[in-house]
């Protein structure tokens, strides 16, 4: 097994206008593990996550310095083709954003735009990925119904299936369970634990218990800086920094 980190972030600084959002981030994200980015609201965790697939390009007045290497390829270089880069990372956001089309097309969309249009192939893939996301049994008789007819929890699983269908190596998840009911949250969490064998997962959360349950590696951020990073056991049982101790103790949010 390859023990090289999947993603290496070096001296990453990110400004939006005059706001210094990320300050000198240095981070190695391990391959085929769940890395949890933990921290209070507004600490820059979502921005860090989005800079990995360059969704930060959508911000106005943005200035990024430093390097992010994925498979030894500097993704911040201006000439980098970004559609392939983004396809390599499935994204689950705080609330599901299904595409405005039916359930089947939501999964097939990503395959179609990358040129795979054969009906037989698509049927097989759609079924496969819906099964992967534990959604197949619930929707197999109504694949042609609009995705908007699903519940929020089902929509989030649909988004997971849709992301997996374009065959990424990395899954980015931004508080993927925050809008979901407990049952749907549990399904997503369990799915992540399975998926980490084949994918490198990076998840943002502010829920301590979720981090404890799921993480292999924890990164704690506060006001745009990484305060502490460590394997999960060490992080929770033996935190080194004062701020980490306070946060784990629930003293600030």
């Amino acid at each position, binding site marked *: 097994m390859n023990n090289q980190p999947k993603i290496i972030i070096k001296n990453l600084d990110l400004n939006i206008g005059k706001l210094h959002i990320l300050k000198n981030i240095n981070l190695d994200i391990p391959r085929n593990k769940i890395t949890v980015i933990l921290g209070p609201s507004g600490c820059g965790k979502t921005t860090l996550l*989005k800079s990995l*697939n360059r*969704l930060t*390009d*959508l*911000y*106005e007045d943005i200035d990024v310095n430093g390097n992010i290497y994925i498979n030894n390829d500097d993704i911040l270089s201006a000439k980098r083709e970004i*559609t*392939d880069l*983004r*396809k390599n*990372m*499935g*994204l689950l*956001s705080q*609330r599901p*954003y*299904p*595409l*405005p*089309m*039916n359930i089947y097309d939501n999964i097939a*969309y*990503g395959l179609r*735009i*990358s040129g795979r249009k054969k009906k037989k192939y698509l049927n097989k893939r759609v079924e496969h990925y819906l099964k992967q996301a534990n959604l197949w049994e619930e929707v197999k008789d109504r694949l042609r119904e*609009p*995705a*908007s007819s699903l519940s929020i929890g089902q929509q989030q699983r649909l*988004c997971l299936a*849709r*992301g997996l269908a*374009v065959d990424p190596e990395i899954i*980015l998840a931004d508080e993927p369970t925050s809008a979901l009911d407990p049952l749907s949250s549990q399904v997503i969490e369990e799915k992540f634990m399975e998926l980490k064998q084949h994918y490198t997962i990076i998840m943002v959360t502010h829920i301590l218990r979720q981090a404890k349950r799921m993480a292999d590696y924890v990164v704690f951020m506060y006001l745009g800086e990484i305060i502490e990073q460590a394997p999960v056991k060490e992080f929770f049982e033996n935190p080194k920094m004062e701020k980490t101790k306070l946060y784990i103790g629930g003293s600030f949010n």
Partner: protein
Amino acid sequence: MKNFKIIEENIFRGLMLISSAIIAFALLLIIYSIFSKGLSSLTWEMISQTPKGGFYFGKEGGILNAIIGSLYLSIGATFLAFIIGLPVALYINVHLYKNKKIVNIIRFLLDLLWGVPSIVYGAFGFTIMIYFGIKTSLMAGIIVVTLLIIPIMIRGIDEVLKTVPIGLMEASFSLGSTKSETAYKVFLKQCIPGVITAVLLSLGRGIGDAASVLFTTGYTDNIPTSLSQPAATLPLSIFFQLSSPIPEVQNRAYASAIVLTIIILIISILSRIFARKYQKNKINF
């Protein structure tokens, strides 16, 4: 204190009620006056024939030339405005998402154009036509009406596209879509009901405008058979008939107004039906 709040609430509710009533009353009055004056003149002959000799003196004939002319003109112009306006609206919402300053300038300019009176478009078109030696024709009218309704088309579509949350754009991008795929395959699908509304709003504006076609499309008693021929339009037909001193002809003007109103009513109903049909795939955020 509590009493004051209740009084305040009642005053504002009263004001809103009065304004709603004024609008409803004005609309009903317009409809009543054109129907009461025009309904007796509205015959099958009127909508199935072109003007015969002496039509404008109260003799036989109808306004089929103007009905067909108006439909040709407004459908042609709406089609052109749509194929030009849709890419612009998508472009400023998807490709230029990040450049808010430029987009705001574009929106400001379009709003200015929206506010320009249609007679100015007509005069502008006329100047160009004289320069190139073009005669009044259906084609010239279609081009000028296209210019007139393009700002409405773009801003109408733009207003709907603006409501698409950034999360949907991010979702589309992270599946490997390019900006154009995101625009045409995701944003457009999400906004089809609103786009249909914008198209029919433009069509309604195009079919009802008289000033822009006055110099450019001209007027004729014949149904045009090519784009280079002049064409009659309903608003001008109403204008010419209403200017007549003969009461019968004036009543026909009101009958023509009924025809125009009914066409616009049909357009509105169709837009509702189509919009509802495509509503189902829209995601409600």
